[in-house]
């Protein structure tokens, strides 16, 4: 993230005019573990550091370590929830948020995070994840059923167009719920969800995708028959890499098995771990189906009266 001098200036003023040096150091420590102002500044421990110098140093360190957004998230949290039962009013906070948002990020109240937003570039890591770290995701996998028959039966350009339409639909339902398309390979793909009620979001994206496909078949599909898909949602840990090919994950392998072995065409299958997060309203849409040796799976499909 390119940090403007104006944004840095707002942050320095916000810190210097809103809190003590001790509190600044404490908040910086939430972002950079063991942060020590005296060590960073070279001031001897017995000499107090002037407020403005402390603020400038902290902001400089945050910029250098690429942690400015995270630090701002901490400031927002402190302003909204206080610290140790004390409320802290932070000056210029709304301007700081606006500055960061102008760089293509969006502050998500519900997650307490800045994520990539608006019309800007959307990366697999939401602009937040760090390479090589393990996170708990919910994954949605989609596969176009009968791909080889379609490829044989219709001209290549027409098949590619239909698949690209489908990808567009999937991207819309996934990104509307703060998910990201991690992978697309012609006849199917994988989407990841990380924030908030991620299992609910992934399941809803899958359900909406089935309905969107129904509408697509009704009004737009140029094939003589309908397009069919299989969908599955599974949750679990996964090491994050910006390059999808580098990702090796048991969760993704299990997801592929669920979709390939248990999802019927035009249905969404979810694993028990996902189902347990559905809540009363949403779980009424899923019925238990074909079990593995250990688990019951749950399925949603659209039917008509």
């Amino acid at each position, binding site marked *: 993230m390119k940090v403007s001098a104006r944004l840095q200036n707002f942050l320095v003023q916000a810190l210097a005019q809103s809190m003590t040096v001790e509190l600044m150091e404490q908040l910086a420590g939430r972002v950079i573990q063991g942060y020590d102002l005296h060590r960073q500044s070279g001031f001897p421990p017995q000499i107090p550091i002037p407020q403005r110098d402390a603020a400038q140093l902290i902001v400089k360190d945050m910029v250098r370590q690429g942690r400015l957004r995270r630090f701002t998230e901490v400031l927002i949290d402190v302003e909204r929830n206080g610290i140790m039962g004390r409320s802290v009013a932070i000056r210029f906070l709304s301007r700081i948020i606006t500055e960061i948002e102008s760089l293509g990020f969006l502050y998500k109240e519900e997650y307490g995070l800045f994520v990539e937003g608006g019309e800007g570039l959307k990366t697999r890591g939401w602009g937040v994840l760090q390479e090589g770290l393990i996170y708990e995701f919910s994954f949605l996998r989609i596969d176009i059923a009968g791909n080889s028959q379609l490829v044989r*039966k219709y*001209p290549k*350009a*027409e098949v590619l*167009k239909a698949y690209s339409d489908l990808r567009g639909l999937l991207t819309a339902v996934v990104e509307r719920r703060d998910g990201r398309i991690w992978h697309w390979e012609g006849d199917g793909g994988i989407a990841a969800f990380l924030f908030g009620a991620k299992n609910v979001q992934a399941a*809803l994206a899958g*359900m*909406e995708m089935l*309905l969107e496909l*129904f*509408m697509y078949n*009704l*009004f*737009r*599909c*140029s*094939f*003589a028959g309908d397009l069919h898909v299989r969908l599955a949602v599974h949750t679990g840990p996964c090491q994050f890499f910006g390059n999808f090919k580098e990702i090796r994950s048991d969760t993704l392998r299990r997801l592929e098995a669920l979709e390939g072995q248990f999802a019927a065409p035009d249905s969404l299958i979810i694993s028990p771990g996902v189902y347990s997060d559905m809540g009363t*309203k*949403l779980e*009424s*849409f*899923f*019925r238990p189906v074909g079990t593995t040796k250990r688990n019951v799976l749950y399925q*949603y499909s*659209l*039917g*008509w*009266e």
Partner: protein
Amino acid sequence: MDVLVFSDNPKLNPAFKARGAFRVKFLAWKDFRRQVNAQAVPTLCYLDLATLPAGRLPGCLRLIRSCPQLSYALIDRRGQLRDVARVFHEGAADYVDREALREGVGSRRLLRALSYLRTRRSETPLGLPGITGGKLLPSGADWSQVVPEREYTFGLLFIELDGKEEMEKKYGVKNLTIAVSSFRSFIEKAVKPVHGRMWIWTGFGGIVLFPFSGADCPALGCLFRLVLFKHLYDIEGSHFPNFLSFRLGMMIGNLTYTQRNVGSVVSDSLNSVFHLGQEFARTGQFCVTEEVLRFGHPALKDYFLEAGHFEGRRILRMRMPLHRRG
């Protein structure tokens, strides 16, 4: 008007001799999808069955029907179709066989096809209350041509939440106001893409007006979508703790459009749509008059069932999607 002839046989070209107002373009089948999607003006597409791969016709028709500005006609020089009348029942504007090709498709024939299309599309909806002198007074594809205090033909939608008495008892005035207001926003947002306008709000529902061009009724597809996707709103957007149920009734009729004192408007169409929604439609149902379905997208017809007659009109109701188990 644009006329597109889709065929891989260049020998067909001399048969199309139209001039003047008709711009005829000959295109190969490989360009079909791109060209169809690119057409922004009224266009008649002639489809050559002899060079169209087997089984591809339904897909092509589906694409054409999804664009209201497009009409189609079939060229059947090998006599592949046995039931020619069916071609017209399903919406074609013309059917050109070997004999007709030999005679040539000139401006006169194209004009006849156009005139047939116009007659079929602008048939005055039968039995509509409020149609002055039986006249259709199209309000247009959007609101740009609508002048307040003038009479037009509109698509009228009645929408109302079911079980309002119970909700009043259960949720309390303040909670209910918030929840109902979010429901209203949901409806307004849903009808916006087809220029629907919430015209009257009665507390738990209201009347939405859709401009009606006399050629088609895109509002039907929009409302079909509203019902199909409703449960996602229940889970993600609704402020009500339970699943919502609402009734929808839609018809096409005339009324004098006004922006002031809408509560005091006297109109047969308005009365009729209120009756359709309140007296005929049952809990959770979406009922439409025959005319709405006739002007709606043809693909939707399979999703509506006979529901009986009401105030002298044939009513159909949407088949309900079954999302929930049990």
